């Protein structure tokens, strides 16, 4: 069974149709890269999946459970939307770390707030906190930042900040981790260190959707690629399909254009 199915997803901003019916599905452990030129709905797609935008039509199904169906009346209770959101994690282009918390604090905050709702929180407070902290430290170790636990975001490079953001998203154990152009704000060297982390996540079979302009990364790490143009998926397939034998003319031009540089 697919871990995520998106059916006929549509989103308008006023008159502007940003998504004109997006369909795809991914399996557990898939890494799907979303490519295409800027302004064609890639980010909006991720925002819809993460419930930062409400789609105007379509369905979002995770593990067979329909989280969103535009045909049915949605529960808009905060509680409900939160529960749905927790299936997903989102790493932003400009990190959006919380500036007043340390690296460790950034990773622990949301989990701590969530665990406070456990009925046994008061009783086992110390133990729960210790577990969250140990977990956060492990995640930060995984992204290579165990020596920066007490730093504040402004003391870190962009690449380090983005790695904290990845650890922060992983702390809530999402089923699917989404990346919105995670390296667009970084120079090539810092890009490499962030991509390395995403690659190691792919190796540990984390299910991921990555909106990216890093074509070699998409080619190497993703096992599935969708090419978006003007709010539609023009072509989807394996990296070989898209990069070696693109069928669609627009995709051919895009890939060809990159190859000649």
């Amino acid at each position, binding site marked *: 069974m697919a871990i995520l199915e998106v059916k006929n997803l549509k989103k308008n901003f006023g008159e502007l149709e940003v998504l004109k019916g997006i369909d795809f599905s991914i399996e557990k452990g898939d890494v799907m890269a979303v490519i295409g030129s800027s302004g064609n709905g890639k980010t909006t797609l991720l925002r819809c999946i993460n419930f930062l935008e409400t789609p105007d039509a379509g369905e979002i199904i995770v593990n067979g459970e329909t989280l969103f169906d535009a045909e049915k009346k949605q529960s808009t209770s905060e509680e409900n939307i939160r529960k749905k959101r927790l299936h997903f994690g989102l790493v932003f282009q400009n990190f*959006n770390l919380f500036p007043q918390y340390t690296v460790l604090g950034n990773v622990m905050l949301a989990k701590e707030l969530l665990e406070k709702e456990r009925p046994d929180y008061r009783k086992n407070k110390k133990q729960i906190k210790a577990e969250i902290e140990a977990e956060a430290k492990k995640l930060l170790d995984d992204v290579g930042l165990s020596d920066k636990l007490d730093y*504040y975001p402004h003391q870190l490079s962009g690449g380090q900040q983005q790695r904290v953001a990845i650890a922060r998203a992983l702390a809530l154990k999402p089923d699917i981790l989404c990346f919105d152009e995670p390296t667009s704000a970084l120079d090539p060297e810092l890009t490499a260190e962030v991509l390395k982390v995403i690659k190691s996540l792919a190796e540990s079979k984390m299910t991921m959707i990555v909106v990216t302009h890093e074509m070699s990364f998409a080619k190497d790490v993703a096992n599935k690629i969708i090419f978006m143009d003007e709010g539609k998926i023009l072509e989807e397939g394996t990296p070989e399909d898209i990069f070696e034998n693109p069928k669609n003319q627009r995709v051919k031009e895009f890939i060809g254009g990159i190859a000649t540089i």
Partner: protein
Amino acid sequence: MIELSLMFQIDWLEVKEVLFSLNEGFIKSLEIFVLTLLGAVPLGLVIAFGSMSGIGIVRWFNKFLVWVIRGTPLMLQLLIIYYGPGIILGNNWWGSGATGRFIAAMIAFILNYACYFSEIYRGGIEGIPKGQYEAGEVLGMTKSQIFFKVVLLQVIKRIIPPMGNEIITLVKDTSLVRVIAVYELMWNGQDFIKSEGIIWPMFFTGIYYLLFSGLLTLFLGWLEKKMDYFKV
């Protein structure tokens, strides 16, 4: 020679009397200062949220209020709030005593400062990048958790300098309550011109204001430094 020494002879009895009176006035000024902050800091937040409300009528009411209060002199507001009920409505809520005048003054001050604070808060809240809210949302945080755990401290850091300005202004604005005969520091200082024909107590009030605003400046600087550990 004798005359000159007489001129500079300090009349310690007079000094004692003046300082006693000025201290008394200063306590009143301090009361106005503290009570205005206690009332206006939270009320300002209510007005700030009101002027950002999604409900049109609430938003417009609050924006209108802020326009009127910021657009007219505080002295005028004091006079209208104190004399208005008695003369327009024929019913003087405030009675004839000092307590009534003081309450009327406090209402004018709290309302006036709350409107100024609300605009500072609004600027601070609206200045927080949308990404901070969205990062909280995708991490499954509730709206109130995002406000209290993520946004609030960043807002506080941003508003300390403009709030500091208003607070220093408030120190000196307390002297306005004299128009409805609340006896504060400057009133008591000026009183010696009429009663004793001496002007130095009046100048001396300046030292009180300077020392008090000096202390506040030091405190605000310390607070700003305390928040230096992160950048927004």
